[in-house]
């Protein structure tokens, strides 16, 4: 089972490689990937340096071109695929069928992985991408229970990668319109959920307020942990009560489920967080490397070390972790 770590910049890529990642994933500095944030990601020189650093040490590099191009911007996506092919990356993570077709036509040597943004939740959907574009791997969205995941993995024509750790949202990846609704921009086409230019944090007598395009998203009392200012993690007045009506600001942590994921044949564990710093990547990569190694050595006797869980807890959004949808008995 592989460990796939995020790299939003060159130092993060290096620490991921140095601390046990089997593969790292990255993006270019534009809207062709779903972490299009100010100052994040790789320019051409840094991309070349990073890819060399990783590949020389036996770590593979995946590049995300996983947004959905709109008609006016299409040349940027072509250019990104061409650049990826020239850089010699190990796989392209994509979601849009036009981008996949372009890659198949112009850079057939590129390995394609279906992005989580593709929102494929069944073996049939994965098979479609395999039959038409020859994808080599699929990253599944975080909406499946373990039972459902097992069904997809067993019937999928390609290896399956799932998220093991990181921030959670409502997880309708590739289809969520909440950010568009408030700001006009979304991860799907612009590459950023709740773009920073629309975000305001204000200290007020009633607490720390986060606003998205002037809409109040949340108000945190003193000492209360904050989260990313996305609409899905906002607090709403519903039937006279104020609370998290859609999603709580929590992080996914599947470490305890590792033996089950391993047994069902999941090929890779993906860590979320290209927007986080090199410290986060180092902490999380170190802990997950140790956990995956321990689990592979002795799956039936595997128990997460409390010290590992403490590290993961401390870097989590909202400082709470959950199994997400993996433990939903009704699904």
């Amino acid at each position, binding site marked *: 089972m592989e460990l796939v770590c995020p790299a*939003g*910049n*060159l*130092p*993060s890529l290096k620490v991921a490689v140095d601390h046990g990642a089997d593969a790292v994933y990255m993006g270019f500095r534009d809207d062709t990937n779903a972490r299009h*944030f*100010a*100052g*994040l990601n790789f320019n051409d020189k*840094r991309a070349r340096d990073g890819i060399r650093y990783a590949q020389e040490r036996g770590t593979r590099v995946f590049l995300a071109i996983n947004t959905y191009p709109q008609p006016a911007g299409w040349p940027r996506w072509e250019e990104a695929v061409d650049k990826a092919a020239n850089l010699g990356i190990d796989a392209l993570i994509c979601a849009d069928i036009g981008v996949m077709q372009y890659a198949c036509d112009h850079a057939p040597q590129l390995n394609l992985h279906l992005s989580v943004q593709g929102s494929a939740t069944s073996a049939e959907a994965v098979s479609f991408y395999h039959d038409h574009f020859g994808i080599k791997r699929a990253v599944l969205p975080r909406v499946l229970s373990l039972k459902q995941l097992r069904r997809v993995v067993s019937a999928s024509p390609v290896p399956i990668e799932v998220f093991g750790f990181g921030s959670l949202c409502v997880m309708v990846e590739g289809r969520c319109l909440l950010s568009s609704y408030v700001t006009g921009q979304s991860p799907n086409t612009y590459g950023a959920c709740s*773009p*920073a*230019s629309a*975000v*305001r*944090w*204000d*200290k007020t007598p009633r607490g*720390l307020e986060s606003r998205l395009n002037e809409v109040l998203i949340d108000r*945190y009392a*003193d*000492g*209360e*942990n*904050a*989260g990313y200012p996305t609409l899905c993690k906002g607090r709403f007045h519903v039937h006279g009560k104020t609370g998290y009506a859609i999603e709580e600001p929590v992080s996914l942590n599947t470490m305890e489920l590792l033996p089950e994921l391993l047994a069902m044949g999941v090929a890779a564990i993906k860590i979320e967080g290209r*927007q*986080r*710093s*090199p*410290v*986060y990547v180092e*902490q999380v990569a170190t802990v997950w490397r140790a956990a995956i190694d321990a689990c592979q050595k002795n799956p039936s006797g595997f128990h997460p070390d409390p010290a590992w869980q403490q590290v993961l807890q*401390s*870097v*989590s*959004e*909202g*400082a709470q972790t959950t199994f997400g949808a993996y433990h939903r008995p009704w699904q």
Partner: protein
Amino acid sequence: MLHRLIRRLPRPPQAPARFMLEQFLNKIFATAIAEEELDFLNDNVFQVRVDGIPMEFDLTLKNDKLKLSHVSDQWDLRITGSAYDFMLLAARREDADTLFFQRRITTEGDTELGLYLKNFLDSLDLSDLPFSKWLEQGLNGAIAMHDRFEPLGRALQR
């Protein structure tokens, strides 16, 4: 806590300290400024307030030089935190989002400017900076001293 001890010391005048910091920042970020990596600070004022010690300033980029000045009301982004947490960030011992989630660092104003700054700092290869060894030793020494004296500080407060 270290900053509680420092608070009891007589306050040094801020202007010379600011001047020295300005010289230092221009030195270590010379390459980044030349490569236009700090252009997001052009015409934008970034205010830093350090809780517990007399350190606060406005930072901007003018004519390819970082400028530090006395705090004003004309800031675009304000960041507030303790000296200890800023040191943890500078030494790459803590993640900025972690400190933000835990409410140990607060930002107000132009969030995108803050994101630029955070991502600029995260993308620096610290070993490439001038004085990197000295800087690392200094920061780690100060953090270690804080960690050592924090229990004592707490005990004295009781």
